[in-house]
């Protein structure tokens, strides 16, 4: 069987944590990897929740940008960016310096706390 082409973020993709949480920023000999995507398809795009394996722990995270080109007028980032999140949707960090796409504002209800700590929007 042939695996489908890799699109955006799926299981075993290495991601980059962009908030200023302790878990995300302390160095570890293994990069944080995605182990599950909470989606009908196993492919995560901007605004999807994923399960991350960081420093031997499992943590949920929100995708804020990926390397795959999306619809026109949406930004495409040079790295797969992710923000660490609790089960109820509260972000763990207190600031997000990297730019966040405006599309996330559409689901203001779920991501209001993450958008509140974001500094730059694209």
């Amino acid at each position, binding site marked *: 069987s042939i695996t489908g082409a890799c699109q955006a973020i799926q299981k075993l993709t290495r991601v980059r944590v*962009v908030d200023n949480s302790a878990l995300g920023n302390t160095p570890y000999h293994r990069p944080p990897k995605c182990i599950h995507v909470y989606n009908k398809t196993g492919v995560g795009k901007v605004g999807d929740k994923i399960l991350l394996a960081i420093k031997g722990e499992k943590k949920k995270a929100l995708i804020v*940008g990926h390397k795959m*080109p999306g619809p*026109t*007028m*949406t*930004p*495409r*980032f*040079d*790295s797969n*960016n992710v923000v660490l999140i609790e089960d109820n949707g509260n972000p763990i960090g207190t600031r997000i*310096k*990297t*730019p966040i796409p*405006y*599309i*996330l*504002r*559409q689901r203001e209800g779920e991501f209001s706390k993450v958008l509140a700590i974001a500094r*730059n*929007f*694209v």
Partner: protein
Amino acid sequence: CRASSDGKPEKFQPPPKPVIIDKQKQRAERRFLSPEFIPPRGRTDPLKYYMERKDMIQRRKVFNIPEFYVGHVLAVTTADPYANNKSNRFVGICIQRGGKGLGATFVLRNVIEGQGVEICYELYSPRIQAIEVLKLEKRLDDNLMYLRDALPEYSTFDMNMKPVPHLDDEEVRVNKLQVRMKPKPWSKRWERPKYNIKGIKFELPESKMKEAQKWSQPWLEFDMLREYDTSKIEEQIWKELNEELKK
């Protein structure tokens, strides 16, 4: 008043009119036909391209799309329902222009807070509210995709950059900048002759450059089936454009 030799008042003679030499009109009119007007090579009915061109001209009458090439620094304001003040401004260097007809796109790249961001905009989208050219500068290549593998300083542009002044009648200057790259591996093997890139300062050893030349296809430039002469089509479209825009 001048006293004449006759003693009678002289008829008023106006001073000689200053002759204004308008250098802009004297120099040859610079023609620029946007690449998305030129129809691609194929067997489709030219009526389709004619209808698309009519729509493109309609849009251009309402909204000014300035002349720009790959390598220019542009600031685009789009209407965004989810942004503050409903509008969103992005400044970046144009790395490629693709698509023909109404679906013509251009990709702007910038590095914000250490994160590289690229946005692909559609030229004729009604969501775009303004396009300003901040810096007019052509580069040595048509496609600056290698900026992704170059050092981030070559793609950083200040969001509040002031427009660099440029005289209308001068030629758009070509910046012969040789960009330095990050260490390999790159997203594409830019040293290969297929990409024909002149704007990178390759710091690779000679052996690697020679090995890359193995993939050169010198017969491609002489291939007659790939020839597409657009000069006559361009003349036609230029005349059509000018007629429609004058109306």
